[in-house]
């Protein structure tokens, strides 16, 4: 589904990402781990054509992302709060995203009703604008908005950060359900090794922009990762 060929991103002398070749097949749950500055967000931003690669190409469903915009209808993402429109209420934001993805209000409401647990009565009907929600609740809104309209590729940067333990567990369940019919490709990055190993069937470790591990998740994966990051 996602394919990167001799992809690199440099800022001046500094190379922040350098991926010779990476292919993420359709239906895979893909985890990206690495310390701060490893290039996780850079990689996601490149897939979303928010920054330009210094060299190489990225394909999403066979479409080169910086040449055509045809990947947009099948892709959704939540990277950070710059994906939220602060002056909207959560409901209005969901409807807006829904409309962009061809869903009417009723469709969106039906979809949202499946996330009542996840929202834990802290998001809908709170008489608050998104900018006034707590970080955790903002994150919930961003994640759910990224699931609107059954996109084929879902990119979530650090989805577990800022969430309370209950919500983290619920999010893991949501991702597992998403993966059930193997129709969707989910890309997740995280600092939390336990969470990624639980939801991702494949984990790639980035260090200073390079891929240093590419692991098919098994029972030993967590140990292996912990050993790696222990230095």
């Amino acid at each position: 589904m996602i394919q990167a060929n001799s992809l690199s991103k440099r800022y001046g002398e500094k190379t922040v990402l350098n991926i010779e070749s990476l292919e993420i097949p359709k239906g895979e749950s893909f985890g990206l781990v690495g310390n701060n500055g490893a290039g996780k967000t850079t990689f996601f931003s490149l897939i979303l054509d928010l920054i330009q690669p210094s060299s190489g190409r990225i394909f999403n469903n066979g479409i080169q992302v910086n040449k055509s915009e045809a990947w947009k209808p099948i892709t959704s993402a939540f990277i950070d709060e710059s994906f939220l429109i602060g002056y909207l209420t959560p409901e209005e934001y969901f409807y807006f995203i829904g409309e962009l993805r061809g869903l009417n209000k009723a469709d969106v409401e039906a979809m949202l009703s499946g996330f009542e647990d996840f929202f834990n009565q802290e998001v809908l009907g709170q008489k608050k604008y998104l900018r006034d929600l707590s970080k955790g609740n903002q994150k919930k809104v961003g994640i759910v908005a990224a699931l609107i309209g059954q996109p084929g590729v879902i990119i979530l940067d650090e989805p577990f950060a800022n969430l309370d333990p209950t919500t983290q567990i619920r999010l893991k369940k949501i991702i597992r359900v998403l993966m059930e019919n193997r129709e969707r490709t989910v890309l997740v990055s995280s600092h939390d090794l336990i969470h990624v190993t639980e939801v991702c069937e494949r984990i790639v470790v980035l260090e200073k922009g390079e891929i240093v591990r590419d692991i098919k998740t098994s029972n030993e994966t967590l140990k292996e990762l912990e050993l790696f990051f222990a230095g």
Partner: protein
Amino acid sequence: MFRHFIRLQWKSFFRAASFKTNLAFRILMIFGVLYFVAVFLALGVGSFYLIRDAGVSDPLQWVNRYMIYYLAGDLYMRYMLQRMPVMNIRPMLYLPFKKNEIVYFSLAKTATSFFNWAHAFFFLPFTIVLWKEGYSFEGLIGWHLGIMALFYCNNFINILINNKDKLFYSLLGLLAITGLSQYYGWFDLTRYSFEVFNMFYTLPVTAIASWLVLVIVIWNAARYFKNRMYLDGGLQIKREIAKTEDFEWLNRLGNLGSFLKNDIKLIKRNKRSRTTVIMSGLFLFYGLVFFPGGIDSYEHPAWNIFAGIFVSGGFLFSFGQFVPSWDSAYYPLIMSQNIRYREYIMSKWYLVIFATALSAVLALFYLYFGWEAYLAVLVGAIYNMGVNSHLVLWGGAYIKTPIHLTSNRNVLGDKQAFNVKTLLLILPKILLPMLIYGLGHYWISPVAGYAFVAFAGLLGFAFKNSVFRKIESIYKKEKYKTLKAYQQKN
């Protein structure tokens, strides 16, 4: 302890984003400040003679008579404009500072505010002139210090009444009533207040009383401040109660409707955009400078078109100029969502067109100055809709200044908003219609001039598609640069 505070203040001042403008801009600002200082000084020195020449035998008494209104006006200005020293306190709360120290430092900081020392430019020279003119030295010292304390009282009263709109407006109402009753001769407040202010001069010792009042006010302000120094008390950021709005009637427009809905909410719910709308409302009255024939240099008929363009174009210029910066806070979303630029720009275009048409309707009062005056407005509106709406969006595509929706910073313009490309685009926006009008005016008749401009406006609609294509390609070409520019928070 105060050493730390002062060092932090120093840094926050010199590292402020507004300070990091380029040198030329800063020099310009310094000249601006000097200009105002000179004006105030001249006023302070000259006012004595101005008042005396107006037939008042004792200018000091005259000033004392109206001092109460001066003080009230000062309080009003402070209430509206002076910022409370609240936000910078938050990071101090859990550091080992005593609360009293924070409180008194914050209060002391407000004492250095421009709103306090600006008055010195008037009072110092005025007092010196009075002395030169033979007023008693002791009396003047007493008067000067007494009045000074009262202005500082205002400074701290402002802290006490801050955000208490009800109290403030009832005070304002009371003042309006006393002003009226003075005008109609029912009750003259100034007769009593005059005695107080005059006593500072005739009996200098009484100035101590006004300093005592100041001490009491400061003490109260400090206590009030200290009691509210909690995150859920005085330090709380005001939150609006949100209401989900549908605007169902826009649904029939499809995706365009979705954007329009958002844009309407953007304008309604953010401080910065609301200010812009209010400012563009003021443009409506710009024509008053021209049409009554008030200013001679604007006699030339082409200036009517100039006025017409601005009267209806307030929103067009102040909002349209900053598309797409209005959406800078969530530009990555706009760029990665399933959005076609065309629909996105189109929604802004409709907003601008609608606002221009509305302005033209609201400007109907220009009919009072004759049908020709309103014709100029109407023709200006047509030109704005047909030609300028496109040009303004085109120019906006080159502007990469992020807009902070919740603050009014840089609302009056930003140096980055003026680059060569946008400046070049101003020519066809304003000068071209004036030229077209002049052509018709001198060649045939004034009415033909208006007809020419209106025709040019209508012609502009025909180029809508090609201009939109051009804007779209700029958006695509500048996408990464724009994204990067919007990321910079300061």
